[in-house]
């Protein structure tokens, strides 16, 4: 038990080199990360982002997702006044009708609340009474553009006036006057016409009254008006959500069904032929390696857009993933149980059924259920490419660049859907696997 000086020296040298290595790791890794992020900073031109960012878009996006505006428009050529929610055809009030804050007539008086009043007078004349500032008047005409008068003093920055256009933005609303049209926007909180559109007799009724009418024998009418709401299309949205879940379900389960027998062919302890094993494994690698994106494109060519294409794309990709995981699970089975079954004189099929399947079922099930949840997300993304499900509705709503309230609605629905599937798959996993452990 004598420790010579040379031994101690060697130990010290070893410890030193270990420390140097550790020090190098603990300083080198963060430096590497930093260098990479700096490279990304320049290669992605993040400095230039400040110029590219469109704050206006961000503002409309945020404002639109929780509020909506109602347009009161006068066509300065014909003198017709129309009221439309979000300026959309589906949200247009019938001619001669208007919400309570707009009184139509010889003079159209628009009450924007807090003392803000806009009046459409005769001969296209417009006046806007702004509390704390004064009266603004404008006279658009074909020949002279828009002639406007303002209270004395410098124009505040929320008024934008030129020869052919006057735009006033206050917290109560917005007025824009051009030669051809005069338009007033009033903003409201919430999502417009979410339950019933204007053409429905139930629009504007309180919840209690609608319920009372529904109980009074109009339930199916009430439901139809809600379900076929032209602006929010609740029926279509429900179908799209169902389609997305269907894609995930068919894809995941189909992949599991296809992969299970193939996994036996790829597992070392079940497949005696090396070549067969190798070929099956390379197939799995191929199915996984060709990404879902490429499968989606290829399949969309053959089957056209729709949920089936999405389901098949998930099926093919996941056949590769499942095949790999299942064959690994099969390689890890305990041989003793199989031998035990064999000792009772069981035939090969029985050995598999009672010796192997009960062992791997919990592993397989938990993997399948995990994938079911993750594929709900994938189905949303694939749907956006193949044109099916809620993914498609989301991209369509985004492309219009104005229906942000619908985008917000779809996002909420997608998050709820994924969380529900997460919860459901967890519940099923606990249920099925706990049952397996207790009984079979």
């Amino acid at each position, binding site marked *: 038990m004598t420790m010579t000086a040379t031994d101690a020296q060697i130990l010290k040298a070893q410890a030193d080199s270990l420390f140097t290595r550790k020090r190098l790791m603990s300083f080198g890794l963060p430096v590497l990360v930093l260098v990479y992020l700096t490279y990304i900073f320049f290669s992605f031109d993040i400095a230039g982002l400040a110029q*590219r960012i469109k704050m206006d878009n*961000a503002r409309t996006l945020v404002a639109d997702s929780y509020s909506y505006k109602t347009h009161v428009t006068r066509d300065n050529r014909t003198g017709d006044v129309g009221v439309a929610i979000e300026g959309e055809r589906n949200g247009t009030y019938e001619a001669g009708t208007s919400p309570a804050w707009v009184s139509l007539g010889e003079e159209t008086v628009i009450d924007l609340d807090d003392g803000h009043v806009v009046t459409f007078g005769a001969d296209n004349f417009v006046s806007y009474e702004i509390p704390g500032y004064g009266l603004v008047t404008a006279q658009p005409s074909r020949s002279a553009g828009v002639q406007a008068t303002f209270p004395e003093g410098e124009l505040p920055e929320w008024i934008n006036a030129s020869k052919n256009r006057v735009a006033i933005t206050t917290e109560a609303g917005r007025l824009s006057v051009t030669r051809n049209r005069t338009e007033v926007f009033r903003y409201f909180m919430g999502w417009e016409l979410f339950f019933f559109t204007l053409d429905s007799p139930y629009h504007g009724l309180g919840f209690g009254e609608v319920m009372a009418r529904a109980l009074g024998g109009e339930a199916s009418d009430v439901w139809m008006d809600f379900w076929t709401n032209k602006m929010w299309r609740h029926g279509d949205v429900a179908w799209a959500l169902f389609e997305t879940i269907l894609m995930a379900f068919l894809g995941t389960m189909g992949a599991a069904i296809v992969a299970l027998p193939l996994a036996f062919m790829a597992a070392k302890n079940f497949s005696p032929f090396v070549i067969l094993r190798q070929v099956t494994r390379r197939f799995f690698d191929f199915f996984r*390696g*060709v990404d879902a994106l490429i499968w989606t494109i290829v399949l969309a060519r*053959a089957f056209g857009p729709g949920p089936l294409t999405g389901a098949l794309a998930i099926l093919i990709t996941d056949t590769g993933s499942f095949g790999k995981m299942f064959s690994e699970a099969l390689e890890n089975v305990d041989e003793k149980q199989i031998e035990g079954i064999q000792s009772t004189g069981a035939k090969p099929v029985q050995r598999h059924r009672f010796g192997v399947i009960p062992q791997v079922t919990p592993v397989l099930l938990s993997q399948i259920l995990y994938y079911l949840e993750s594929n709900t997300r994938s189905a949303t993304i694939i749907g956006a490419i193949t044109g099916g499900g809620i993914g498609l509705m989301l991209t369509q709503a985004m492309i219009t660049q104005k229906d942000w309230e619908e985008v917000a609605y779809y996002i909420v629905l997608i998050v709820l859907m*994924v969380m529900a599937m997460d919860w459901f798959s967890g519940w099923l996993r606990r249920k099925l696997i706990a049952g397996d452990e207790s009984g079979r």
Partner: protein
Amino acid sequence: MADLSGSVTEIRAEYLALTRRKRLMDGIILIIFVALMVSGFMVADSRNAGGFWSGFHRFFDFPKEVLSEASQKVGELPGHFVQFLPSLIETINIAGASTLLGAMLAMVLSLLSTRGLARWPRLIPVFRRIMDIMRAIPEIVIALVLIFVLGGGPVPAMLAIAFHTAGALGKLFSEVNENASLKPVEGLQSVGASWAQRMWLGVIPQVAPNYLSYALMRFEINIRASAILGFVGAGGIGYELKNAMSWGQGQYGQAAAIFLLLFFSIVFFDQISSLLRERLTHGKKDTVSA
């Protein structure tokens, strides 16, 4: 003895009844499952633009077309490879940067939501819910919103994937944290280390190999995700693929080149990452035995 044999037959009968019941239940579940699959398939088929049976024989038409075109112009392929290499690198960079950013955020979130380690133990459920929501939002949703605000390019894709990655990795990381030994943390606390120091010096060295292994797995997934996001407008190889596809017949040489690039890079990074992960887990075994 007679009693015993009687009870044996009883037990036997009971056992058989139990098995029968179980079989029946299994059979019913199987029938429901098959019915769900078949009806689901029929519904999906009816709502698809082209039917399954009519499209089935056309399945290989498009790959054949692409392959035949690519094989005719096989000389152009290397040129196309060089042409699309920058966008491939961009796609991989999107995946790399988003994995890094996501993992760093996940690290903080997971430490804040692990019992025993959290800075504010009362806020653990809050951070857990935050991660759940981050995990639930598909990348494409955030990417599309960000593309509207920031314009096209790699940054929206990077942020979107990083956001989702933070949620997904955060959950895995916090599971790892739960197994970390608290002794180094307590030791550090006794000498007056701050929370950040305790985590960085006491916890991270213990969990780093597991973190790295999960992050590598996520990197594989993120390469695929960033290719897909390119297809809806963020930059990278997906965007080029969309352009190449839109030129249609006679121009599939480029699409073929992109398919090949994408396929090989996915396989390449899968292999590298599984090799590294193997080494990480093995390295851990070595230190345990030493």
